[in-house]
């Protein structure tokens, strides 16, 4: 089991979602995050004072997948989230020791 975490640009979510559905990923969890990195933020102006906002709105997509699905998942994610512009985001993989489906108590691959 692996946990794949992807930081993506918000407007790519729909494509990411369908790309994942295509390869048979049945679920995912998405949350709003603020990213800091090479991509610079934007500037706001209030009564003549210019404010520089360093953080950029991103989404975090978390998918737990079976080991054999990992590569397909990574490819799908990277493909669908890529715009080629700076700030497209990162994907990282961490090991998962157990997964449980709350409703049934099933563990492992069956829990997904």
């Amino acid at each position, binding site marked *: 089991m692996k946990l794949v975490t992807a930081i993506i640009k918000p407007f790519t979510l729909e494509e990411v979602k369908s790309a994942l559905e295509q390869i048979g990923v049945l679920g995912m969890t998405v949350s709003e995050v603020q990213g800091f990195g090479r991509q610079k933020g*934007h500037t706001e102006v209030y009564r003549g*004072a210019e404010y*520089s*906002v*360093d*953080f950029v709105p991103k989404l975090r997509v978390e998918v737990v997948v079976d080991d054999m699905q990992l590569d397909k998942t990574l490819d799908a994610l990277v493909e669908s989230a890529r715009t080629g*512009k700076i700030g497209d985001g990162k994907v990282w993989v961490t090991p998962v020791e157990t997964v449980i489906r709350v409703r049934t108590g099933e563990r492992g691959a069956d829990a997904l």
Partner: protein
Amino acid sequence: MVDTGSPNTGNTAWMLASSALVLLMTPGLAFFYGGVVRSKSVLNMMMMSLSAMGVVGVLWVLYGYSLAFGNDIGFGLVGNPAEHAGLEGLFGGTYLASEGAPASIPLVGTIPATVYVAFQAMFAIITVALVSGAVADRMRFAPWLVFAAVWATVVYFPVAHWVFSFNGVSAPIGGWIANDLKAIDFAGGTAVHINAGAAGLALCLVLGRRRGWPREAMRPHNLPFVMLGAGLLWFGWFGFNAGSAVAADGVAGIAFINTTVATAAAMLSWLLVERVRDGRPTSLGAASGVVAGLVAITPSCSSVSPVGAIAVGAIAGGVCALAVSIKFRCRFDDSLDVVAVHLIGGLVGTLLIGFLATSAAPAGVKGLFYGGGVNQLWRQAVAAGAVLAYSFVGALIIALLLKYAIGLRVGDDSELTGIDETEHAEVGYELSTIYTGSGNSRVTQDASSGKIPAQAGQEG
């Protein structure tokens, strides 16, 4: 023509109040519109309404009032722009009574000319603001300001002359619809709503659809704001309709009660359509029904009975609720349904006068159902058609000229990021503790320093 004399304080009191009420309608509209768009466009949406107050307010005093209410310069098409430029001749005189000698100032009817000017100014402002609903999320701010100024000058001011300028009120000779065609449009079903609706349609056709429309759902971001807008609009609309009596009298009274009951009926019938068609009555539907009812009773509030007003409202609410599907059928992105609510609603109200007008109402005209035959109906149809066509063509030409001269649309990136950030360098709401909890945006330059490189928003 402008007489001088001393105003009737009661009528003046009501017209001062009415003018303030109608002014409030534009901020009300800003919330009605602003709540329906996505949060990344709320400020721009409101700015289009607010800026109309600025642009049209100034033009009105400079020459707009004269174009609309100055003496006709031919065929009832437009007033003399020079007549009251800068409101020349509409103020001055003896403002206060002094031992015996009464005040003597320029009047329109029984009220000070300046009050009449102010009241009519608010109509010009809101008509322009109404147009903006068709172009949500994607129109650059500068071209909008230019469009507002040009369309007001070329389309609204003349059309107001056609419809609102009666011979011998503000000038000896007025407009053709009011005096020759004798169509009934008490408070602006044609001059305001059909006019704005047709212009909105033209402008959104030239501008094109929003990225992703209609496949992508663009959900209202703040429905309580929409209800606030509807509430303020209803409130202000009493000045719009009952104020159009230009007196605190029985005409204002029936206009007032008709405005109340038609709106109530329209809300209910819109909700009924939703219940049947969609399975749920929605708050957006209730708010939209309110506006549809207000639009439809605007031309007709002086010519129908209260029961007739219920009919006008019920029909308008239902028809407009169904009309929202037109834009999907015909695939034009009239983002906030200016066509379905204002153009269609205005047509419904204007034409229903031809059927439901009763001689017991102030207008004293009989509609088809009251034995008046089609005599009034065809007049209503001609007036509606003329305004619709003129406004649509006028707006189309202005929009096309602007498109090729300076461009109308923001870039795709800014449509993605949000027009607020790219056109106004602001965001509507900042509720995150990431910022409010601490200082995670730095002041890079403050107002005490000079010009800054404007480089907002490349999130896309």
